[in-house]
């Protein structure tokens, strides 16, 4: 390969001169790179500059054990904890399981409890609702609905004192609810002033209330 004459060089002597110059500049830059490389290596072998205050600060910081911080410093420390992600995940699952267990312990067991909780709650997920029914001749009237597990004994209405009006105010979770009135523990009657729901599959119609979705319902 080296013996073969370059046809381009033979045809143009100026071109061969330029090629030679390019070769020599490449060699020079390669030598330069080697020199720089050696200088960098030598610099890394040198000891660090003897800055005593800086060294002292570094050693003090290394010596400070985060686990030995007490009081408010511990709460503000950015590195108060060091944990493997798997342990963090395990702790999270344990907290969740504990919360679920605790939640199941305090979940209302009866409709009465549920209504009591609804009535005492002042959170924005519930809204006050007043049920009114004119029921001549009735001695007992209650409201049943999905908000009290359809338990006729859990939410009795109050007789207004005069006339045939029965009234009940309570807080209901926002959303769509089905309900009905039960007169004297036996007769189910939808609310005459509210929209009707479809046949409930048990031979009756319930009323619909949309809490905080529709003024006038």
């Amino acid at each position, binding site marked *: 390969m080296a013996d073969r004459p370059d046809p381009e060089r033979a045809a143009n002597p100026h071109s061969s001169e330029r090629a030679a110059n390019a070769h020599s500049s490449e060699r020079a830059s390669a030598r330069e790179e080697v020199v720089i490389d050696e200088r960098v290596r030598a610099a890394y072998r040198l000891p660090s500059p003897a800055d005593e205050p800086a060294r002292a600060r570094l050693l003090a910081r290394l010596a400070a054990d985060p686990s030995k911080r007490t009081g408010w410093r511990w709460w503000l420390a950015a590195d108060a904890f060091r944990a493997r992600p798997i342990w963090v995940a395990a702790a999270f699952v344990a907290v969740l399981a504990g919360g679920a267990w605790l939640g199941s312990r305090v979940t209302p067991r009866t409709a009465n409890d549920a209504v009591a909780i609804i009535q005492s709650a002042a959170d924005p997920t519930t809204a006050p609702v007043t049920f009114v029914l004119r029921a001549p001749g009735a001695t007992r009237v209650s409201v049943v609905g999905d908000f009290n597990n359809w338990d006729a004994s859990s939410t009795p209405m109050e007789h207004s004192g005069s006339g045939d009006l029965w009234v009940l105010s309570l807080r209901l979770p926002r959303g769509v609810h089905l309900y009905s009135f039960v007169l004297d523990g036996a007769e189910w009657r939808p609310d005459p002033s509210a929209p009707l729901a479809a046949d409930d599959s048990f031979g009756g119609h319930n009323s619909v209330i*949309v809490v905080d979705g529709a003024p006038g319902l």
Partner: protein
Amino acid sequence: MRLVLGLALVVLLAPAARAGDAASDRARLDARLASDVARQVAALVEDARAAGLPTDPLIARAFEGASRGADAAGIVNGVRRQSGAQLAARGALGTGTQPDEIVAGASALLAGVPPDSLARLRLARPGGNLVIPLVVLCDLVARGVPADAASVAVVTAARAGASDGALLRMRERIHTGIENGGAPAGTAGDVVRQWLLESPAGKTSKQKGREPDPQRKKAP
């Protein structure tokens, strides 16, 4: 890494949360229903949960059946009907339907409203909440307005921009008209026509309807 850890936690905890919900539902059902009925209802509830449907209305339906004195088969059948209607309502109303809309849509379907009416209602009020229109639609059908006439009335009003309050007032007027001896279908149509004539929204909608179609203008 954090994203992967977060996703892994979600994947790990989702079945645990579902199992917790199932156990809680089963305890509620066992407290009110016979063991065999509770087991069948719990299975239906679990299927609904797996399908992403609201489950509280199913449990409530079972409790309602028990309170009304329905037998075991009646309770299970009632829950099954409710679950099927919810599934159909979600299918008709489309993805992204809110749980309350599914419940209201299911009630409308159980009342006899055809599923395509729910889809038309969604198109009439794109992006808007459909709970009140569905409640009104269901109410009209339950009061004797034929399902087709009720659908036309509510969809027309919704398309013309009727608010929830306006729909509820229309419902009351239709109810009063029917109680006063009006034919349900005719009364519903009359009330909606009257609203279109009187209300600013209805007038605007009618005027808009009379405007020439710009696409048609450009056509040769």
